[in-house]
């Protein structure tokens, strides 16, 4: 019962934080500096790890697909399989998980320490709502940066698959054929689908992490606990949201 109350409390406070942040949306142009900084942290610094991970996910996907499909002569469809899997599912989910691990944990740690060391209280005392200067720029930045990360993840994943299909001896499909099949069986709608998913996941992850950080109570030890909880809740949220968003977008 206590657990359920905690979950419901978490939902409620997250929703309240969202509404409070949105109420300050008019102040966003004045917070350009904070917005750019968050964009840099969320987008630019996350790019290398997203690129590396996507490349290998695309490669492994092509490798596994080639290994499985060679048994019934469907190797030439690897391009469409890798393309659709990356664009519709793996790209957005991997970006969101990396965001939770790298950006979400950082946000929670920062806000939790601010809360523990009473910086947040000081802001409130100065009549500066934390939702306005700490949450809104992050939400705006994630909305702008996640699609960019997702499209890069998709393309890098496709190229990873193309390289594997060309150079692995038991697959050996030319990149032209790989991309021809990928183009034939994919529509931009599939990619857009993935971008929307990534947007929803990223937004959810940042919101949850901000909320957990701002609601930290206790001493410095609680900062670590808050970060752990933020990452776990983000991962669960991503996978639960994944099902429903996918179902809604089909």
């Amino acid at each position, binding site marked *: 019962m206590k657990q359920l109350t905690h979950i419901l409390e978490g939902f409620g406070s997250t929703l309240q934080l969202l509404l409070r942040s949105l109420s300050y949306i008019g102040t966003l142009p004045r917070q350009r*500096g*904070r917005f*750019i*900084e968050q*964009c*840099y942290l969320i*987008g*630019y610094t996350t*790019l290398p790890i997203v690129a590396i991970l996507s490349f290998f996910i695309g490669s492994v996907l092509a490798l596994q697909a080639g290994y499985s499909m060679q048994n019934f002569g*469907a190797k030439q469809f690897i391009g469409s399989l890798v393309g659709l899997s990356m664009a519709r599912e793996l790209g957005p989910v991997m970006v969101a998980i990396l965001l939770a691990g790298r950006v979400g944990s950082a946000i929670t740690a920062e806000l939790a320490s601010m809360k523990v060391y009473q910086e947040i209280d000081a802001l409130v005392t100065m009549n500066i709502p934390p939702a306005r200067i700490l949450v809104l720029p992050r939400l705006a930045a994630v909305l*702008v*940066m996640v*699609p*960019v*990360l997702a*499209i*890069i993840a*998709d*393309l890098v994943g496709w190229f990873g698959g193309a390289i594997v299909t060309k150079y692995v001896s038991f697959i050996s499909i030319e990149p032209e054929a790989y991309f021809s099949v990928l*183009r*034939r069986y*994919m*529509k*931009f709608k*599939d*990619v857009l689908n993935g*971008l929307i998913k990534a947007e929803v996941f990223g937004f959810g992850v940042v919101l949850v992490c901000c909320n957990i950080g701002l609601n930290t109570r206790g001493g410095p030890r609680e900062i670590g606990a808050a970060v752990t909880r933020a990452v776990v809740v983000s991962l669960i949220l991503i996978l639960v949201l994944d099902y429903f968003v996918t179902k809604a977008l089909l």
Partner: protein
Amino acid sequence: MNNPQQTARVGLFFLLGLALTWVTFETLSGGKVFKDKGYNLIAGFESLKELKEGDEVRMAGVKIGTVEKTRLAGRRAEAVLRIDNTIRIASDATASIVMAGLIGTNYIGIDLGSEKAPPLQPGAEIHTRVTPDLNTIMTEIGSLGQKLEGALSSFGTTLNGDGKGGGLFQKLDKLVSDNSERVSTTMTNLQEITGKLNRGEGTIGKLINDPSLHDQLVAAIAEFKATASQAQAFVADAQGIVAQVKSGKGTIGALLYDDTAGNDLKATVANLRSVSDKLAKGEGTLGKLINDDTLYNTAQGTLKKADRALDGMNDAGPITAVGIVANSLF
């Protein structure tokens, strides 16, 4: 706060994202940058089956374009084909939907058409032909399977019976078990017969095994041939005789073909008839002898008298013989 370098990086990153999204959109949705150059043709079908936009158009197996659009046009489905500018399609060429694989990959196959036919103009409609798809083939195979199953089950009923009467196997089994003794006897007899044949016993056995019989047969045939040649000679002789007879030579010839002999014969026959008539009427000595009983009775009386005289002589015979013997003794 943030430095200009950071801002520039974020801006560049965002622009990169926009550019990549645009390129992906153009590539996947056939934007103008990558749009296939060429001209359109319309292909109308009853059903486009699994044909999708972006599927290939091939002529004799070579890709010459793509399916640009699929649409419903009244009571039929139309595929708009984008054909490469360098390719000319003859006006009598025929398009059909061809299955490239079992997992629903199709393309439009166009045959070469005749060489002299004028090429189709952009926007023209190409002739189409319906080809059976996998579903039709599967349905036919299914009905064939049902027929086969029916035939096999009736065959099975014939062999194994339908529960009421026994099947062929049961009947055969019963026949064999009921007549096992007879069959066994028959087999023994057959074995015995074949044994005899093998040993050269009996007529057929000798016929099979004895070479002398063969020689005899050959000799008999040779004799038969000789007889046949003799018969041939005989027939030739007979033909010669008949020819002689026909030409009126010899007695028979004269008899058949000479009128004098015929007349003589007629006179002789007439004489014979008059003699027989007299005999029948009892005229003359012979006639009386045949027809008159008096002579018979007289002859019978005479014979009786003679018989009695002989009997008298027989009775006196022994006495006379004794007298003669006595006389000679004394």
